[in-house]
């Protein structure tokens, strides 16, 4: 069977067949695996939120542990008005559930804050303290970084944090994922105004309550962490002010 494989017609035919085979295989794989992948992502999100408030859980148990510690989920707009709230088990298909707000997508869309809504998790620690968990998202060196920052009921002291990234350099920027980095945030406090918190590279004073040390060799990622915390807290401040005002009344 001597096919002239360099014949133009054959080349076209081969390309078309290849595109069809590859396209269908990839599309099929992606579509059929999507529900499982989405479930894994939701589980991971729950693990991370719980991690920020100091609760260690696994992907398998996340679903049951989540409603125990996360009492309420709110979505607020940039003026601080509450738009939606949910509680109890999470339904991944419920688009009104603040848990399902895709903060990463919103960040990438570069829409102004006034057009977006932001999730807020009202939680209870293992000791019964009220905690607020805020999702943060920003840019590292190679790609997006994100995480959750947990504030105590005074809305000023950081109870804990958990960060993650997509493609930061292993051993450098990727260290933001390690507890060694996120543990530094415990007990630190936000400032009264922007910059609410800073990641300092070199020369940080140990007594400084409003910062943590950056990662050696991971400057850009560390700066990214500081920037995303600052930008996000600025948005949530309106809501926190309204809470303090209403409780003062």
């Amino acid at each position, binding site marked *: 069977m001597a096919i002239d*494989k360099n014949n133009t017609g054959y080349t076209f035919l*081969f390309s078309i067949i*290849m595109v069809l085979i590859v396209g269908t295989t*990839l599309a099929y*794989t992606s579509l059929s*695996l999507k529900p499982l992948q989405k479930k894994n992502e939701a589980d*991971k999100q729950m693990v991370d939120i719980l991690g920020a408030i100091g609760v260690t859980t696994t992907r398998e148990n996340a679903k049951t542990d989540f409603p125990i510690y996360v009492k309420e989920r709110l979505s607020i707009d940039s003026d601080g008005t509450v738009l939606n709230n949910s509680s109890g088990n999470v339904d991944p298909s419920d688009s009104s559930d603040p848990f399902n707000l895709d903060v990463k997508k919103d960040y990438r869309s570069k829409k102004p804050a006034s057009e977006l809504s932001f999730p807020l998790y009202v939680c209870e620690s293992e000791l019964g303290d009220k905690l607020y968990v805020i999702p943060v998202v920003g840019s590292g060196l190679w790609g997006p970084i994100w995480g959750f920052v947990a504030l105590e009921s005074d809305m000023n002291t950081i109870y804990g944090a958990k960060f993650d990234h997509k493609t*930061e350099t292993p051993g450098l920027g990727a260290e933001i994922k390690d507890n060694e980095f996120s543990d530094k945030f415990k007990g630190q406090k936000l400032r009264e105004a922007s910059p609410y918190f800073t990641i300092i590279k070199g020369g940080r004073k140990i007594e400084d309550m409003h910062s943590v040390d950056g990662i050696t*060799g991971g400057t850009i990622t560390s700066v990214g962490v500081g920037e995303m915390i600052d930008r996000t807290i600025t948005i949530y401040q309106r809501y926190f002010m309204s809470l303090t005002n209403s409780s003062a009344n």
Partner: protein
Amino acid sequence: MSTENSKSTLKKESLFSKKNRMLLKDPLSDFNPITIQVLGICSALAITVQLQQAVIMSLSVLFVMISGNVIVSLLRNLIPDRIRIIVQLVIVASLVIIVDEVLKAYQPDISEKLSVFVGLIITNCIIMGRLEAFALANKPGPSIFDAIGNGMGYAWVLLLVSIVREIFGSGAISLPGMGQVKFLPQDWFIASGGFYENNNFMILPPMALVVVGIIIWIQRSSNEALIED
């Protein structure tokens, strides 16, 4: 009848023939992808900060190389010359994407570790280089050996560089599943009143190049034939 029998035994013998053994052995030293062929450098820099990353990367590259080599070798008589680069790339990219998607669904923890590397594996010059230089012109059997040989050649350089960088740069060693383990006693460090400090340069990518340069130095000192003019 007897000639047919001897023919078939001849075929079986060639599985571990001298030629195939050379395919396995050469890339480990004289024909090493990183130090001689100059392929696969990009990944060697970012990945070698920790040993566990190097291990995962090496295994992934090995897997993709073997499957890629086999598929291209099987299709070698059907691929038109003019689009051969595109075809090779598409095959490798599809393999990697399928592996990534399957891992994301069934092994999300491993997938997380690997997602950093996905782009790096697809553009790993070793995979493309060997497809172009070998699999396109050889049968699947030898192609598998070529893939294994080059994969291992790539792996040992990667592992060696990452061991050096992690030990001197972080004072630790890490393995997949084990995480990073710092083995130097804490009171050696200056922060605790000692004398030792980690070499932070080692964590930075340029040092990987220097370490590979030194490996080349050692390799070529022991084998004069490899020295360039």
